[in-house]
């Protein structure tokens, strides 16, 4: 019996091996190397690595949503995007153009898939494991951009836009994008001042529930939303300290008692349910908070990516001003 099994397995393997003969791509000897030297582009990325491109990149793969958004906003349709489904749900400010291939998760993009796309450029962030970046460099030039920087969120955001623009030859579009963002900030600030909200204290958050426990994620002053809030003339009310890059901190309902009289804004989505109107609605601590009593709790619309680029932030400013001045 066992011998039969083994014999069958051996034969099957041999047959399958024969079926796998042939090639899917001609060898490099057959493919005549015919690269037209265009204007070379040399840049230094956020990690200080020198990246040289033969010309403006057109086939671009992006491993993180903020850089996907920057590409789309600059008018470059990426050929490969990590977690297409997630991006479509979470980032509606810059909907995907073209028909990008899904390259897997943001934490572990499939190098196989990226390689098969044969891109001219891969745009990654500092969150990607160094070993993976090293491998991607073999596939194509890799531009490593700052994922987030607690010391200067808006600065690192625009720096990413500039670098991507340089690599794809979209400098004019980048200037327009940054101008739009500045204008949006100025308009938002003015609208808030007109509504008498200049210098108001604000706390931005999101929350999730597991086994009867509600955790609240605070977007502190060093987060991207916190930085934008400050530019809008609002004051960050969180006293907890955020992490070094994203400026996020975790607390629970009790931790909200130190906030005082603030404007409280939060992000939720219908897929996971709204933590603040669901599980917390009956919570005595929540109900006793001054901003809840005064009705200063605002849910921002879905699809604004809190760690995104200028387009997402414009959408955020619009929705925030709408919510606060209603």
């Amino acid at each position, binding site marked *: 019996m*066992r*011998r039969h099994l*083994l*014999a069958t*397995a051996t034969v*099957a*393997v041999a047959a*399958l*091996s024969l079926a*796998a*003969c042939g090639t*899917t*791509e001609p*060898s*490099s000897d057959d*493919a005549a190397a015919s690269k037209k030297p265009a204007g070379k582009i040399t840049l230094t990325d956020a990690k200080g690595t020198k990246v040289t491109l033969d010309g403006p990149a057109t086939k671009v793969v992006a491993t993180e949503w903020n850089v996907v958004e920057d590409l789309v906003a600059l008018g470059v349709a990426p050929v490969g995007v990590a977690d297409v489904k*997630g991006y479509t*749900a979470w980032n509606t400010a810059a909907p995907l153009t073209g028909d990008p291939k899904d*390259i*897997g*998760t943001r*934490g*572990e993009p*499939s*190098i*196989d*898939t*990226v*390689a*098969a796309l*044969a891109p001219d450029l891969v745009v990654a962030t500092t969150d990607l*494991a*160094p*070993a993976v970046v090293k*491998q991607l460099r*073999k596939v194509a030039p890799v531009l490593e951009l700052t994922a987030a920087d607690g010391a200067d969120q808006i600065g690192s955001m625009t720096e990413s836009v500039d670098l991507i623009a340089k690599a794809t030859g979209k400098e004019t579009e980048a200037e327009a994008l940054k101008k739009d963002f500045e204008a949006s900030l100025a308009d938002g600030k003015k609208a808030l001042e007109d509504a008498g909200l200049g210098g108001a204290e604000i706390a931005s958050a999101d929350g*999730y*529930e*597991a*086994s*009867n*426990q*509600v*955790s609240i994620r605070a977007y502190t002053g060093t987060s991207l939303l916190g930085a934008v809030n400050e530019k809008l003339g609002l004051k960050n009310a969180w006293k*907890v*300290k955020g992490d070094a890059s994203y400026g996020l*901190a975790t*607390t*629970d*309902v*009790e*931790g909200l*008692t130190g906030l005082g009289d603030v404007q409280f804004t939060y992000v939720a989505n219908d897929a996971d*349910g709204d933590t603040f109107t669901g599980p*917390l609605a*009956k*919570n*005595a*601590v929540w109900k*006793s908070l001054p901003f809840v009593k005064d009705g200063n709790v605002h849910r921002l619309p879905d699809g604004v990516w809190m760690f995104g680029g200028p387009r997402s932030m414009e959408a955020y400013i619009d929705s925030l001003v709408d919510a606060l001045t209603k």
Partner: protein
Amino acid sequence: MAVIDKTAVGRDRTAAATTGAVAVTATLVLLIAALAAVDITQGTADVGASQVWNALTGNAEAGDASVVIASRLPRMVAAVLVGVALGMAGAALQAVSRNVLAAPDTLAVNAGSYLALGVLAVTGTSLPLLASSGAAFVGGLAAAAVVLGLSGLGKGTVRLVLAGTALALGLNAVTDALLLLFPQQTEGLYRWNQGSVGQNGFDGVVQMAPVVAVGLVGLLLVARRVDALALGDDAAQGLGVSVRGTRVTTVVLATLLSAAAVTLAGPIGFVGLCAPALVRPLTRRFRGLVRSRVGMPVAGLVGAALVLLSDVALRAIVPADTAVEVPTGVVTTVVGGVFLVVMALRTRDTASADAPDRLRIPGRRAFVVTVVALAAVLVGVLLAAVLLGDSKLLLGDVVNWAQGRAGRVVTFVLDTRVPRVTAALLAGGALALSGTLVQAVTRNPLAEPGILGVSGGAGLGAVLLVTTAQAPGSWEIAGAAFGGAAVTATLVFGLAARGGFRQNRLVLLGFGVSSAAAALISLVIVLSDPFDTTKALTWLSGSTYGRTMPDVVPVAVVLAVGVVVAVTRRRELDLVALDEDTPRLLGLGLPRARLGFLVTSVLLAATAVSAAGTIAFVGLVAPHAARALVGRRHVRVVPVALLLGGLLVCLADLAGRTVIAPAQLGAGLMTAVIGAPYFVYLLVRTRR
């Protein structure tokens, strides 16, 4: 006269016993009260002892009062409730299975509940608390039934733990796979699985309290019959107690309690195991506790004290905002792991190493046929592994690539794919050889680097380095993994060596150490990168993602050395695996030979972990299957085990890379899914 005397003495004894039990209970209640008082003064809000006092006496500000009522008190009550439920459940399970190691964790009740809740989350059914508790109950009960059915009641204690652990690993692997596949739907479930007693208002407590009450009352009602079972099945039957009925009722009630605890706070590890064990030494002093009717509630009180103590200690040591992130369950698991180690050292182990299971000794031809066939299958799998993936290739591409004249795309794809396949192959081989050596030295067919905590230690070492250092190199990671593995191995083998590697003790020690190591890995990741579940799962579930050729050099070197050692010392391996006396009679230095083999095995396991993360079961399945195929002479076992190990991990890696491409599943999850049933089958086979 004599009769009267007897009753008088009996009455005295009962009175003494009662006072003893009362004293113990009173002390425990005081301890719980003190801990509870401390617990409600801790938290993220600025509400300390004085504000709590004001709130309780009814003259505090509304805000402070609400914090006490909706956050502090529910958390404290939940901790007590969960502790009581788990302590009682553990005591009842231990009494009814006559097994000091029975507990909700070791019976895979928690893993079953976790899987049930995971399936619910994935299918998108959002249920109210009671209904999801029902699902958790069904899942937990099914798992407990399987484990108890497999291990047989009142037979080997270790068998139960092994069956439970194996099943728990398998079930958890399935759940983890669900978490990776459906990250959006299962958001928060991973954190839940760490267990935390924090509450959002009294709702959960109010809904679960009746369930716990039903469980407690039910257990008290069957307590007498459970006591009768302790006399032995026949004696109990003689007293008119239905043995089977009592057992089933008790297990169902205990599962109900565990499911209630799990729904309320997630799995809080090891409380059900430790609490009754802490009561046991007291029973020698206070005879009154021997009766289940008294002993079970006391175990419940001890459980409550344990959970509260963990919660208080956690909040006292870690800053308030970080404490939100750190799950209570991790703390109890670490404490429980240490506790299990101590318990293992204290138990009298009657089961010395078993006589080797009798196997047919296949002839030379069978061996050659097996090796050739396995090698052919392995070559086939390797080819498939290289050709299949997100982009399908053909053999000609590989030939071109090998000659360095492949086109651009093929070169990239193979440059990234070949190291992964190599890592899987070598890690599998290394784990198989490591398992072979450990099983030979300990003469324990169930010993395995994963179960013995060696892989866990290696994983912990590697994770500590990866989270603290900037971009460490492959040799550094291998070094850190070896450091961690060396620590846990020294601990486990060092302690087990006292009294010559008694079977049960070794496995228990390993179980304690590996659970604690897994909890610590979770803890390190939660503290360093709380928002990255994927990272945690990848390290805990083993993956070849992002491996390059330099990463597999350490495991290749060690594997080469290990094979040389195993081949040149094959005779000694055979002798060591035989029994205590033969090698001594033949003048072989037993301790030295053992130490050499163990060091080699730890090195192998550590480098395998640094190449592919913690991969479970391979070190167990490969040597065992090899022995079943070609007998027990190591000259034959080693090559077959190597081939099998490589084959298993390559297959798992291939499946993980292709099933949900372009997303990936860890190879370790796959080996657990394949390995757990095999392990359980082994247990069934050796059930004689």
